């Protein structure tokens, strides 16, 4: 009986050696967004997504309900409590489909939050960079980025 078990074990090992045992990759770990108190995507909806073929980047613009509604109306009026979050990844070839590109390392997370301040609405912009989501301290060009993000036309999602 013992001999039979050993034989069975040996056969199993041999079969295992024959099969193509490459580890199955289940997540796109490169593109993972670290959970961070600096931003939060929970409850945000997709406004649009776009790629830049020259730079090889892919971006998805998320927003809360107020932001999505404002975006569909063309962001003509900036109201309080809108949250826009633009995540930009480097792209990589999709190993599972020749002809496709999927997100790779996170390049930046840009967050726009609006809040009422007196009779006005204050627009706050922050850019987090790289894998560690370091806050970008250089504030030049912020107005342009705000304009760019608020200028994005939503994707048709019927």
């Amino acid at each position, binding site marked *: 009986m013992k001999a039979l078990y050993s034989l069975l074990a040996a056969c199993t090992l041999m079969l295992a050696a024959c099969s193509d045992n490459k580890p*199955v*990759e*289940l*997540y*796109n*770990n490169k*593109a*993972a*967004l670290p*959970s961070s108190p600096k931003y939060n*995507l929970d409850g945000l*909806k*997709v406004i*649009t*997504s*776009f*790629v*830049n*073929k*020259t*730079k090889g980047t*892919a971006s*998805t613009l*998320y927003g809360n309900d107020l932001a999505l509604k404002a975006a*569909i109306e063309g962001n003509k009026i900036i109201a309080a409590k809108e949250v826009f979050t633009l995540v930009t*990844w480097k*792209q990589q070839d*999709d190993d*599972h*489909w*020749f*002809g*496709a*590109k*999927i*997100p790779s390392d996170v390049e930046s997370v840009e967050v726009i939050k609006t809040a009422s301040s007196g009779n006005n609405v204050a627009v706050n912009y922050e850019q987090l960079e790289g894998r560690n989501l370091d806050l970008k301290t250089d504030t030049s060009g912020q107005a342009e980025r705000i304009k760019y993000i608020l200028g*994005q*036309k939503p*994707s*048709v*999602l*019927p």
Partner: protein
Amino acid sequence: MRTNRKPLYQRKAFIIIMILFLGFVGIQFVRPDVPNPPVTGDLEVPADVKAIVQRACYDCHSNNTNLRWYDKIVPVYWGVASHIKDGRADLNFSEWNKLAPADQKAKLWESINQIISGAMPLPSYTAVHTEAKVSPADLAVLKNYLASMVHNKPADTAAINAADKQYQHWEKNETAIAKLPTAANGIAYIPDYKNWQPISTTERFDNNTLRVIFGNDIAVKAIKENNIHPWPNGAIFAKVAWAQLQDKDGTTHTGEFKQVEYMIKDDKKYASTYGWGWARFKTPKMVPYGGANVLFTNECMNCHKPMAAEDFVFTLPIKH
């Protein structure tokens, strides 16, 4: 010396062998027909590409089937005949003209991906017909050819106008649908997908689309809890595709909405289709793909088959 052995023809073993042999000869006459119908429109590609496709694919995917003598022996012949029937039904290079140009392109990219994944040519086929194997050098030729067909150019006025028109309808909420369209396999369009969390964005340069894949709460929870191998019952994906609308500076936006596709996990209800329910709805009117023909799911399954080890899911989800 006297022997008690019976003559050969009276021995039991001999009789059994004879019966099996006669049976074997007999079944040779049970032959499904493998006709070679006329070639109505052949694949037109450069000679080096054509040579590889002919050698690796044509025996099952064309009307020019070349059967070897060993293919003609029953029961091998039965297997070969059914392969050819299925092969031609799925893709027939001899009736290439019956496909619209966009479908021809899609078929070529699908085929190369089937080759890359090792699903095609069928390993059981190449085990005997070794000459049908596609070498890494052959694959490079095929890849180069397809890559050379991709052209990035700014969107033309027609594409921009079509996208604008569709957007205006949607913006005014004119696309809302009263009665949910249902695919032939009973799966209805799920309007709530747009409130789900996206789990990845992909660019397809083979067919000029941008895609966002959404996951319902069960799918998103499974991702967070590392419970996606296999995916739990109740998990649903919705993959949305838009035409690409490219700017002059290379930024490519989502243009016209093309379709939404669902994969619904239920290993009992959908046991016969890899444990997933499949459906595709096209245009903002959500026209069910496949019409009344429930066999459209074969197309979904054939394409996803190489991903069996990943529970038939192509796109790796992103955790956040």
